């Protein structure tokens, strides 16, 4: 296909030349699947849309032609604006609309009746579209689908849901061509397999990656602290950089860190530079205000999190600052790409290590970027909880045969190896619950008649539609300013954090200090607190684990005789560690034991990433408990755990016996809160737990009960149930990340170096400052509860009625059962 004259003119009027990769996308427009890998600012979106615009230019196409899917609602709206420019300029007869969770119901209805030529949407909205009975009519005219930021979708369940929906769409539009647009990734063929209909081939088009980024570590006079993640020591140097640049993006790894940094930055901002904050917990209104100000060029800096990772065009960003170790090289590269949205201009980025260890980590990441050595873990086969939801969505759209749906699902790359048995398990779960005890068969959700499956009660379709999606926001509570009427919404915080707040506690939100007043149903009410120092400085955020590749790079650095590229303070620290103890090695586990402050300490360097190290801590302390070493608790970081115990560890080797650890994973860890959370996620996706209920939300929550009860019940009576199997599988990664413990055990094959010392070692010292002390569970919880109850009773004692009745009796006599048995 050549570029029509109208398009050539449009390019030349702007003084543009078509990029080679844009031309290649046009030349190969007939391919069933095409993956374009291009840096930010490489005209990627236009490359994806040019073939559609050309095909639609003659105005002959009736109905939907191109579906555009992006992971962000905001991106869909942004692209609509950007596409409208050439369409208007060339006077093309093309209608473009977006459809997301923010689109009104009336508008959505109109779109189904009279679809635009190009529809811009999200994976969830697409899945919803496929659930309607009239879906075949809508999709029959579809010719192309463009999936933007496909690298971001390919790494999570949203992406799995998207490709399952695509298999459905492809069945309704057999000639459909798929196009994926991706940032630089470590394994393009894996993304290509993810994109294409299995086993279709998929051509990978590589755009010129552009010049190497200009990236370095920010020089700060004050050395970074020994522990912590805030980067507040670098505030003056960061302010200086903001002054010197037009617009700076300041990335943080967690929302909490972004809040604290923004707060401190603001306190030090004597020039009153316009600086904003942007993260996923803030309300849409707040985020949009910042986005508008940014596009209008009114802001000199934005403190942000991954909410700005994806490719919305923010205009003139000329510097990216990453506070804290980037944890993943790939992530760092994609963030750097946010600076200088102009093709062929190098992106400029500065790294700010937030503590001494991160100096090493940032240096390792820097080397990796220079060597273009990106990291990432291959994803396993398609998750079954998402498949369960897909089967339900399929049922909502009308009757289906198991054989037909199975064949369709196997055209999805991630599910190409799905066995019929696994598929039937999922189908049985959706239909009957899939329990070992076959109960209430009369009420099963799907029924089979003559080989055709359908909903028992067609009204159930509504419930299925209301619960589409794989993003877990069920744990979030709304935050509002307390007022007479409906208070101003500020955003969301995690329920887990909200429930630990007591009235009067203060925390940072949206860059302001707020005071917790009450928790009313699903809403946290707060008041503004002026400039008061926040008492609780942080709230729980997503913890990203350092990638395996980056950890390995750090271990390789440790093997060097000297570190001339590191600042003196860090270099001396590593030398001191080497002379006092030794530095951890890649194929060995280093265990240091030493007394400190009257207790025994064991520091284990496993370099398996934060989540895996935390799980290792749970398993190791369990084994220590069984051996009578009386562990009291531990802290975990990306590279080590530090265990506190009453007795010393004299022989660490048996603690790492892999069969024992695996057994602990299978049995004991089953009762852990992290496993329960993992279960809750999968059970919600699979449709056992509703995230949305029809009608107004019940006041109070008497009617609903926690997912933990379902988990405990299944563990007790149906331990082989599909959802428990899925939970154990999920625990191999994610929050539990047992897979990386296995990897560590394999890599080190029992080579354990035990160093006994009389005091804390240089490398272990920062561990004492780590947050997130995990007490060894069990007796501890009851003791804490008893303390808290005593304290509260004492405090309330004066208010209680002095009469004996209604007051608590503290009996020194027999225990509960004794008292009961002796009763008359």
């Amino acid at each position, binding site marked *: 296909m050549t570029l029509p004259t109208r398009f050539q003119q449009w390019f030349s009027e702007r003084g543009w030349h078509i990029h080679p990769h844009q031309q290649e996308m046009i030349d190969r427009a007939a391919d069933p699947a095409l993956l374009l890998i291009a840096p930010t600012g490489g005209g990627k979106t236009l490359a994806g849309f040019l073939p559609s615009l050309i095909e639609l230019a003659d105005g002959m196409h009736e109905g939907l032609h191109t579906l555009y899917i992006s992971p962000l609602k905001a991106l869909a709206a942004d692209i609509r604006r950007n596409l409208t420019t050439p369409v208007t300029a060339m006077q093309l007869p093309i209608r473009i609309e977006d459809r997301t969770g923010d689109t009104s119901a009336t508008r959505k209805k109109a779109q189904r009746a009279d679809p635009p030529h190009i529809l811009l949407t999200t994976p969830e909205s697409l899945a919803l579209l496929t659930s309607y009975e009239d879906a075949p009519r809508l999709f029959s005219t579809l010719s192309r689908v463009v999936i933007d930021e496909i690298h971001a979708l390919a790494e999570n369940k949203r992406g799995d849901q998207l490709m399952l929906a695509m298999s459905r769409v492809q069945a309704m539009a057999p000639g459909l061509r798929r196009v994926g647009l991706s940032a630089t990734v470590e394994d393009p063929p894996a993304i290509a397999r993810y994109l294409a209909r299995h086993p279709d081939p998929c051509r990978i088009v590589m755009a010129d990656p552009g010049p190497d980024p200009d990236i370095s570590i920010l020089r700060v006079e004050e050395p970074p602290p020994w522990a912590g993640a805030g980067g507040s020591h670098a505030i003056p140097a960061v302010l200086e950089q903001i002054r010197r640049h037009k617009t700076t993006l300041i990335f943080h790894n967690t929302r909490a860190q972004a809040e604290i940094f923004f707060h401190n930055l603001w306190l030090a901002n004597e020039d009153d530079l316009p600086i904003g904050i942007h993260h996923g917990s803030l309300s849409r209104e707040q985020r949009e205000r910042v986005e508008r100000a940014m596009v209008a060029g009114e802001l000199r800096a934005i403190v942000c999190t991954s909410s700005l990772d994806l490719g919305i065009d923010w205009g003139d960003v000329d510097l990216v600052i990453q506070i804290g170790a980037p944890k993943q090289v790939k992530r760092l590269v994609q963030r750097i790409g946010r600076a200088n949205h102009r093709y062929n201009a190098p992106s400029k980025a500065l790294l700010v290590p937030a503590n001494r260890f991160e100096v090493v980590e940032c240096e390792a990441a820097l080397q990796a970027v220079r060597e273009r050595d990106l990291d990432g873990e291959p994803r396993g086969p398609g998750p079954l909880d998402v498949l369960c939801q897909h089967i339900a969505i399929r049922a909502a759209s009308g009757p289906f045969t198991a054989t037909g749906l199975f064949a369709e699902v196997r055209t999805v790359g991630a599910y190409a190896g799905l066995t019929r048995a696994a598929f039937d398990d999922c189908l049985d779960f959706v239909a009957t619950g899939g329990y070992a005890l076959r*109960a209430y068969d009369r*009420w099963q959700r799907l029924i089979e008649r003559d080989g055709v499956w359908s909903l028992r009660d067609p009204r159930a379709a509504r419930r299925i539609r209301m619960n589409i999606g794989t993003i877990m926001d069920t744990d979030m509570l709304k935050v509002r300013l307390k007022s007479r009427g409906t208070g101003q919404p500020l955003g969301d915080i995690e329920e887990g954090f909200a429930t630990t707040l007591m009235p009067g506690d203060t925390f940072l939100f949206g860059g302001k200090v707020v005071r917790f007043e009450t928790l009313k149903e699903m809403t946290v009410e707060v008041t503004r607190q002026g400039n008061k120092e926040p008492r609780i400085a942080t709230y729980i955020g997503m913890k990203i684990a350092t990638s395996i590749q980056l950890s390995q790079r750090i271990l390789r650095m440790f093997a060097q005789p000297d570190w001339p590229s590191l600042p003196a303070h860090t270099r001396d620290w590593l030398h001191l560690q080497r002379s006092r103890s030794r530095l951890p090695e890649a194929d060995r586990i280093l265990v240091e034991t030493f007394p400190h402050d009257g207790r025994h300490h064991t520091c284990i360097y496993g370099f398996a990433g934060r989540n895996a190290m935390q799980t290792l801590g749970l398993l190791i302390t369990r084994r220590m408990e069984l051996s009578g070493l009386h562990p009291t608790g531990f802290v975990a970081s990306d590279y080590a755990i530090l265990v506190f115990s009453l007795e010393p560890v004299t022989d660490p080797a048996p603690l790492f016996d892999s069969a024992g650890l695996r057994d602990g994973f299978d049995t004991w860890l089953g009762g852990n809160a992290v496993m329960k959370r993992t279960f809750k996620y999968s059970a919600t996706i699979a449709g056992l737990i509703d995230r949305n209920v029809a009608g107004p939300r019940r006041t109070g*929550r008497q009617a609903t009960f926690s997912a933990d009860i379902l988990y405990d019940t299944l563990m007790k009576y149906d331990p082989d149930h599909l959802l428990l199997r899925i939970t154990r599988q999920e625990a191999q990664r994610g929050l539990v990340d047992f897979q990386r413990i296995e990897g560590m055990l394999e890599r080190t094959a029992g080579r354990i170096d035990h160093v006994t010392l009389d005091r804390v070692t240089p490398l272990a010292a920062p561990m004492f400052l780590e947050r997130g002390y995990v007490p060894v569970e069990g007796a501890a919880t009851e003791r804490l509860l008893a303390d808290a109850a005593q304290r509260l009773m004492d405090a309330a004692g004066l208010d209680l009625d002095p009469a004996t009745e209604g007051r608590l009796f503290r009996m020194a006599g027999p*225990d509960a059962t004794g008292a009961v048995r002796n009763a*008359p």
Partner: protein
Amino acid sequence: MNPGFLFQGERLFLLPSGALWWPGAATLIFADLHLGKAERMARRGGAVLPPYEVHDTLRRMEADIALTAPRLVICLGDSLDDDAAIAGLSPSEAQRLRDLTLRIDWIWIAGNHDPAPSGLGGRSADAASIGPLTFRHIATPDASGEVSGHYHPKARLALRGRSVSRPCLLHDRDRVILPAYGTYTGGLDWTAPVLAGLFPTGGCAILTGPTPHAVPIPCTSRSRRASA
């Protein structure tokens, strides 16, 4: 150590499971069993929950009964999740219930979900009075010596950066509200206005679980407005 508490001159004990034991009258009290809840949800086109809830609730009841050997059992209403739930019980589950009601004097108090449980043995009543105590499903505003259920109270405590949430019993001089006993029951936060209204001058909560920790009910600003 289960200290128990004095109520209208009687010493009562909250068992770890959430049942209330009144040794003075050899009476064991359960609130809100909600037997058949999973079946009802499935019947109404909701989620198909693990069908082990009736068995689990019965197993816990049987254990509490074996421990206390009561002369009388009172179920404070919402014993069955709805009228049709009886039909949903499996024959063996219904038989287990009948075995109990045959052996022990048994009163089913009517609840808002199950006006008159029948076919399971035992007696039915809207309310029952024994000595100084009155048993009914929903608390009445000006009652005294009243033991009720219905609200499924749940306490939440912040402990050093994490929170523990457990079903709990609430009481003051005039009334006791029991936690829900059924395996598939949720809870209503103890600070909910409707609960605060029932304890206008404050009260005490006792947590279920291994140790019956007693904690004052937190005061909220609207505690004086009752609306039940």
